[in-house]
């Protein structure tokens, strides 16, 4: 009887440990989602025709590890989800057409320079032939990761394993500028930030339970909002 009592007490303490552990995990999982925030500096109703053509250009001087193709992969699909009639002209085709302009060292970076370049008769003719209305230029791309906690691993003749807990905060911050090739103006800028916390407990083996995909979230958000804007929905 005494044994039964003792056993019952052990069972309840085991239950308490499991509940506490599960509760702790839930607490960690709650903020472990990815939160996205967007900012737009675009006057309302700047664009009214959804059937527009755009070119997506990266910034090879400022952001060399994220090229035009990466930018297209990042936001094209989410743009087309929102506005399937939007036409995305490949950056390589645009750059070949307007060479020597829009190369890394000759891309206009101010409104005045932009007006001079697009005001060039031959450039205008070629841009018109391509049918491009807007240039979307990447102006910011940053991702930072901060690691916390710790996992300790060890081994011996009887075996080995890890024990501990690590989590990491990841923040991504992307921004694009929208240039109007017809009106020779800067339509505005759109920025998007995402933050998320990843968690990785280690009990024998470290297993990541949640990996925040902040860059994917930012790409999706930027693409959606760009497409809404270029469809005249915002």
């Amino acid at each position, binding site marked *: 009887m005494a044994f039964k009592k003792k056993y019952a007490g052990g069972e309840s303490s085991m239950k308490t440990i499991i509940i506490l552990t599960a509760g702790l995990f839930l607490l960690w999982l709650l903020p472990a989602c990815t939160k996205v925030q967007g900012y737009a500096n675009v006057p309302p109703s700047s664009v009214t025709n959804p059937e527009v053509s755009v070119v997506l250009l990266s910034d090879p001087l400022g952001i*060399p*590890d994220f*090229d035009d193709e990466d930018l297209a992969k990042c936001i094209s699909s989410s743009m087309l989800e929102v506005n399937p009639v939007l036409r995305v002209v490949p950056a390589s085709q645009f750059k*070949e057409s307007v*060479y*020597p302009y829009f*190369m*890394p*060292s000759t891309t206009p970076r101010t409104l005045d320079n932009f007006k001079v370049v697009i005001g060039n008769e*031959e450039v205008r003719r070629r841009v018109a032939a391509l049918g491009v209305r807007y240039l979307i230029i990447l102006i910011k791309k940053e991702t930072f990761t901060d690691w916390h906690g710790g996992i300790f691993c060890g081994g011996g003749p009887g075996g080995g394993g890890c024990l501990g807990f690590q989590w990491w905060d990841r923040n991504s911050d992307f921004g694009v500028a929208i240039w109007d090739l017809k009106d020779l103006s800067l339509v505005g800028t759109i920025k998007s930030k995402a933050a998320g916390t990843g968690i990785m407990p280690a009990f024998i083996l470290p297993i990541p339970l949640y990996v925040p995909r902040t860059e994917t979230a930012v790409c999706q958000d930027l693409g959606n909002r760009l497409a809404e804007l270029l469809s005249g929905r915002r």
Partner: protein
Amino acid sequence: MLSLRISRRVLFAALFLIVAGCSVERNLKLDARLSLSPAFQPIPVRVGVFYSPEFLAATKKIELKCRPNERTDIFFIFPLGQASSELFDQIAASIFASVRRLSGRVPSADEKGTVDGVLELRIVAFEWKPQCPQEKSYHILSRISYTVNLFDPDGRLITSAGISGVGSEKPKPCFSGCKDSYATERAIRDAMADFMLRFFERPEVKEWLSKRNMPEGSLP
């Protein structure tokens, strides 16, 4: 059994090459030429273009490595002179009234009346660097810089200008129509774009153009 023998032989051969410290060299093919003529207002002057034999034969051998102390013994050889001259020839032909390849900086007596000036291109520096995953995502950065000399038909130097370009690429799996070094081709193109948009802004070049009796508004 046979396949096991072959794979063992290959393995031993690879091991032997590594132990023997053999290095691998690869001659790259570069083609920086444009598929369309540049979007640039032509300049109505006749130029002679001179490339020194050293320039035309200029190559750069670079070891594939992430950090300065590393050693991979894998080398790439970049034919910079050839690729640069091919693009420069294409650009010159599309922006000047006429272009003549010269064998020296000073045109011969026969050539003198046919050119308004002579352009010479020289490679100053070249860099090709893999940016390794620890730093950012893996990509290759290439930089090239040149000096462009402009001489009058009597061989007097009018101006000497530095131009430079940068190119980057992310190595991707490629099965057909692959480029050996996109980054370098992009850097060469960027440098030539720099030449087209900045060289003619120089006061000495503007003065030279104005002496060629260029009509008002025909300057780029």
